């Protein structure tokens, strides 16, 4: 019993060292801001890259003269989905950007954005393919061009499949950015690690970091579920 109370008060001391003393919570907050910033920038880049790749694949698969576009897209997808994002991060920062004065932060969100683009492309492709082929046929049979059919008939329906999956991709991305400390960016994980090392006591800082990720992910998941329900409601079936 005595041991237990000592353990509890010990935990309190650890907590106060890891979080309260010297306003250390500000360091977590800064790190947390960095994590969110990088995730957000990466999502934007990922969506842009993903749309371009999906467009390449789509045009390349339908137009024989432009087949090289889908070949390019497929090579990109194979490389970015076939290697660990950690290795990609190291290569981009230490090899590709080493001769350039690019901050680690930029290299970081570029890497996660380019990586995420590969997954976003597949999300978009799957979303488009899930729309019944009869929709395209109906559009074309009325005399609409393939572009009009895509923009007016297929895409509005594909968006409903794509948006929820994109939300999940964003959630995954936030967690993946935890490795960015390895190129010297002070994200929330790195902050926790640093505070842990300063006192040789990792339990509290890492626990705090984990809880922060968890809170964001849970909130985002709830928002996403709400959003999906709204999509389903406007789906007048």
């Amino acid at each position, binding site marked *: 019993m005595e041991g237990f109370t000592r353990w509890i008060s010990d935990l309190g001391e650890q907590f106060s060292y890891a979080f309260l003393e010297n306003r250390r919570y500000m360091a977590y907050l800064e790190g947390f801001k960095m994590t969110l910033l990088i995730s957000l920038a990466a999502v934007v880049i990922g969506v842009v890259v993903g749309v371009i790749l999906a467009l390449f694949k789509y045009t390349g698969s339908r137009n024989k003269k432009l087949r090289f576009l889908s070949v390019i897209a497929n090579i990109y997808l194979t490389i970015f989905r076939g290697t660990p994002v950690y290795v990609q991060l190291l290569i981009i920062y230490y090899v590709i950007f080493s001769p350039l004065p690019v901050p680690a932060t930029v290299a970081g969100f570029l890497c996660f954005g380019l990586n995420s683009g590969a997954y976003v492309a597949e999300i978009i492709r799957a979303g488009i393919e899930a729309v019944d082929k009869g929709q395209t*046929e109906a559009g074309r049979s009325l*005399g*609409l061009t393939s572009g009009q059919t895509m923009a007016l008939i297929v895409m509005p329906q594909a968006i409903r499949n794509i948006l929820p999956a994109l939300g999940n991709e964003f959630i995954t991305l936030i967690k993946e950015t935890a490795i960015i400390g390895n190129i010297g960016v002070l994200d929330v994980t790195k902050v926790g690690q640093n505070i842990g090392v300063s006192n040789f006591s990792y339990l509290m800082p890492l626990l705090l970091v984990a809880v922060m990720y968890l809170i964001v992910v849970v909130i985002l998941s709830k928002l996403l579920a709400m959003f999906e329900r709204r999509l389903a409601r406007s789906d007048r079936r």
Partner: protein
Amino acid sequence: MIDVKDLNKSFEGHQVLKGINEHIEKGEKVVIVGPSGSGKSTFLRCLNLLEVPTSGEIWFEGKEITKAKTKEVNALRQKMGMVFQHFNLFPHLTIVDNITLAPVKLKKMTKSDAVANAMALLKRVGLEDKAKAYPNQLSGGQKQRIAIVRALAMNPDVMLFDEPTSALDPEMVGEVLELMSQLARDGMTMVVVTHEMGFAREVASRVMFMDDGKIVEQNRPEEFFSNPQNDRLKEFLSKVL
């Protein structure tokens, strides 16, 4: 109006259409019947190039559409309305938007003209109260009638029907066939793939029997049903009538 010369179509080595020659006049109501897999739907879908023929020629209103550029194909499709087995209404658009989308986007009509035209057509099929509804709020028969209206809104010269009643509940088949008969009486040129022998008998000016990728026999409906020549057709009719 439509001329088909030695039309062949293969899917991955499997030949579905085997050298079809056919001529369809303006005002004709051609009904195509035949067993599943005989190529009737593929033949119909070749007429507006939803399927690209492997070889052969298709002429429509004096133009060889099998050699036409994409732009010309789009233009000729405006003249050929098509109705599908599964309706293929656009679920994200209201009924009136389903009908006006193509005429407005293809600049055939202004938005207000297109809406007026759509409402007139809806009134004709007795569905004007559904203008603001979404497709998934309608019954199958209503959906198919809207799909017919959507095709008519482009003022086509010919209407192609690909098994328009096959996906309907039996009690809804009648309303769709009635609308199609009405269209036929108004003089629309029609090519209809169907299993509705009653419709073929009453509305068709010509009935075709397709089997194994070929048009095996065709005749005016009276002779077609009362005095079939081909053995395969006799067998088919004995099963469906």
